[in-house]
């Protein structure tokens, strides 16, 4: 059985090809995270502002995103939007899909961060005559976002792993790169092992880094 044989020379030889997949995966994660952070903040503001029709509509949309699988959303964006005349590259579709999906979760995280602030912070801002805008940007958001940074970090780590789904919409990220090598060489052990190992190492190190960030915060507070 050649399947269980591990060929170091072959493994080394495919690293450059996989590295290109890593680059795509990392950029997709970065782009998706940026989008999720910004969109989530917008959803949160729409919710706080209590605008008629808009707020319930946005909140239904957020619940809908949370309640359906990311894979279906990616397929929808990839196969259905072009038929409506909206066509973007597979990569951009993937980044938008990831950003939208995770924005439903960042919105919830921001909301929790804002609600957990002591009411005295609002009262101080109000009684010191700060404009509402400044109270948000200078007092409430910096504290709320700082408090939820570890949770936002977890979102990035989750998204990093979920980028593998982009392989299903033809994005040549890390998993797709590994599969392509397998299909060309009929050797799957080395590429898939390396791909899995890479996901694991990055996730593990990120989780550890986030934990140390949290404990350092506790010391400071």
């Amino acid at each position, binding site marked *: 059985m050649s399947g269980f044989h591990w060929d170091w020379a072959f493994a080394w030889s495919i690293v450059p090809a996989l590295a290109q997949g890593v680059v795509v995966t990392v950029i997709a994660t970065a782009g998706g995270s940026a989008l999720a952070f910004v969109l989530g903040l917008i959803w949160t503001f729409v919710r706080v502002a209590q605008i008629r029709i808009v707020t319930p509509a946005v909140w239904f949309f957020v619940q809908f995103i949370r309640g359906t699988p990311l894979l279906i959303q990616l397929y929808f964006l990839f196969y259905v939007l072009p038929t409506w005349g909206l066509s973007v590259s597979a990569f951009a579709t993937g980044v938008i899909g990831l950003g939208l999906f995770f924005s439903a979760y960042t919105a919830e995280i921001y909301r929790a961060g804002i609600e957990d602030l*002591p009411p*005295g*912070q609002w*009262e*101080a801002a*109000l*009684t*010191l*005559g*700060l*404009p509402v805008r*400044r109270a948000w940007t*200078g*007092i409430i958001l*910096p*504290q709320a976002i*700082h408090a939820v940074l570890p949770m936002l970090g977890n979102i990035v780590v989750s998204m990093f792993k979920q980028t593998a789904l982009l392989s299903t919409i033809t994005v040549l990220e890390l998993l797709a790169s590994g599969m392509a090598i397998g299909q060309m060489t009929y050797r799957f052990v080395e590429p898939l092992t390396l791909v899995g190992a890479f996901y694991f190492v990055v996730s593990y190190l990120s989780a550890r880094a986030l934990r140390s960030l949290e404990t350092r915060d506790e010391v*400071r*507070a």
Partner: protein
Amino acid sequence: MKSVPDTNAALLQMRGVSKSYGGRKILDRIDLDVAAREKVAIIGPSGSGKTTILRVAIGLVRPDEGTIRIDGAYLWHAETQAGLKPAGERHARKVRRAVGIVFQQFNLFPHMTAIENVREPLVHALGLARGESDARAADLLTQVGLTDHLAKYPAQLSGGQQQRVAIARSLALRPKIMLFDEVTSALDPELVGEVLRVVRELAHASDMSMLIVTHEMAFAADIADRVLMFDQGQIVEEGAPAQVLKAPQNPRTQKFLRALLER
């Protein structure tokens, strides 16, 4: 009993102010005047409405009934030719500018240093330039004895120091009346003195009116022109400190002061 000061001179004027929470009357038709430069202390058991009257005075709480005037302007009403009309938060924002408050829990902004805390209202409420606001913030912190702690975060300061930063911060807008809400209740006993000293100096040196909720009777006797005894949302006794604190007439005041002595 000392009479209510002349209406025109009253910096804070409440008429028939009531507030209920969940069917419980916290403030029951309160009439209260604080004259310019007058220092008024409020005493009373917990739950008597002492804190609520301060929150109402600065517009953090809107009363169910009654009117509040600050330096002549109605806090929750607009004056029209047809009479008084209820007004909203936007109106109240302008009027409450003349009122400052120091909270029991300090409510400093924890992500800002001492000087940034004091600078915040100078820059964003008054619109002062950075340089001028820095100088003024440093002055205010010097005034409360914190010259050496300008760049420290609240978490790096003792409770007494944090409360003094909060006092400096609320002085920044130069309020005409300052409210103190049990400003030493959250402090360790050994830190109470430094905060009371600052408030006392302020009371003696400044022209501000003050409305002070406190459990420190010696302090109240020292700085107050008038003491109000609150119980169940009403002012049950008022007068000069020597009278209310030393020779109370109302049985509820007598009981409250006796309980404090036996503590």
